[in-house]
């Protein structure tokens, strides 16, 4: 067993929930778009580190899920591929064709998650811009 697998699941699940909820506050994600996720649990699992993070969406915000029910949607990939997806360097279907990304469970939820993430317009964030 890898060392990371011995660490508790809760702290990263809380951190991910906070990050996702920040998306609402910053106006990057509309709650309407996530309506199909209401009451559903999503498990994000890394195949290389053997870790998992589970969150549940209650219709208003995400929170860590620490129960024992099977998740409605499971997304599995390596840390580096998750990172590449987050940075928009990789296309999820490209990873899916080559089996580097696997989604099991409710496919409709998977499409919602994928499409809502793809639709985030980061240029709307009021970040300080480098001076030219």
């Amino acid at each position, binding site marked *: 067993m890898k060392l990371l697998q011995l660490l508790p699941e809760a702290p990263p699940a809380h951190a991910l929930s906070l990050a996702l909820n920040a998306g609402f506050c910053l106006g990057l994600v509309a709650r309407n778009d996530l309506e199909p996720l209401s009451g559903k649990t999503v498990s994000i699992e890394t195949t290389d580190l053997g870790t998992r993070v589970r969150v549940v969406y209650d219709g208003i915000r995400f929170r860590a899920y620490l129960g024992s029910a099977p998740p409605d949607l499971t997304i599995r990939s390596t840390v580096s591929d998750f990172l590449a997806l987050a940075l*928009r360097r990789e*296309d999820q*279907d490209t990873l899916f064709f080559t*089996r580097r990304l696997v989604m*099991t469970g409710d*496919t409709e939820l998977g*499409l919602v998650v*994928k499409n809502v993430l793809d639709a985030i317009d980061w240029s709307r964030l009021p970040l300080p811009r480098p001076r030219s």
Partner: protein
Amino acid sequence: MELVCPAGGLPALKAAVDNGADWVYLGLRDSTNARNFAGLNFDEAALAAGVAYAHARRRKVLLALNTYPQAATWARWTQAVDLAAAKGVDAIIVADLGLLDYAHRTHPKLKLHLSVQGSATSHEAINFYHQRFGVRRAVLPRVLSLAQVENVVRHTPVEIEVFGFGGLCVMVEGRCALSAYACGDSPNTMGACSPGHAVRWEETPAGLESRLNRVLIDRYAPGERAAYPTLCKGRFEAEGATYYAIEEPASLNTIEMLPEFLRMGVRAVKIEGRQRSPAYVAQVTKVWRQAIDSLTRDAERFRPTPEWMAALNRHAEGSQQTLGAFSRPWK
């Protein structure tokens, strides 16, 4: 020659424009388009923002209204046409005769492109759409050989657009009922082939299984390339053997045919993939922009570079890239 690129959302539209698309095509969040997937596509605000972004950079926006209106919800399609006109969309892509008629009568200034779903393969059919509805451009179904494309171009005043890159299906365009056969929904009627609600992926001891409304589409061994869970790309038992009984998953890549397209007067090439992410749109658009620029500079010396082919290859569905029906030396 113009480059027509897909966008499933505002970031993808920006990626297309920033990487050199001349046109970006997109759909609304309902069954008026053939990529009606959860969370994908444009609401009114995103459409307005997308049109503004493209127009500020002198690019054009196409709204795909490429499904077949249903009797009970006809107004959904006409309202979408009205919205396109109101938001300053440069042209709409339409397949249905009734909707073409509505758009032509109600918004005579709104340009009309005939969708690939209209399945017009002859110049006689395309000229009919031109004479009757003033159609400016037709997207050719992916069943014609190069010689047949040339024959169409020679006999019509309508601009001709061909598919350049992306996933292939059985190409019974506008008439395919395979998805509806398995789950009741088809691209033509509700805008999705193998809609998410009917698809299940499951890891089993025998391998990764995809099912459409419980019909087993395929079972992938570890490491084996996966494909979209559509009936046409499945492996089935037929006469004692299990194999791709309809077609093997493949991607179209016609970049080496660009000089031929140019010579015969093809007006535009289209990239498939409104369901793909901004990363795909950016990378594929960039390669095709470079290719068309290289072609424009010197068509005689045009050669696809290994870098272009590698960049396109990695996004391909299936283990093969093909020239599709374009390359068909036999008659």
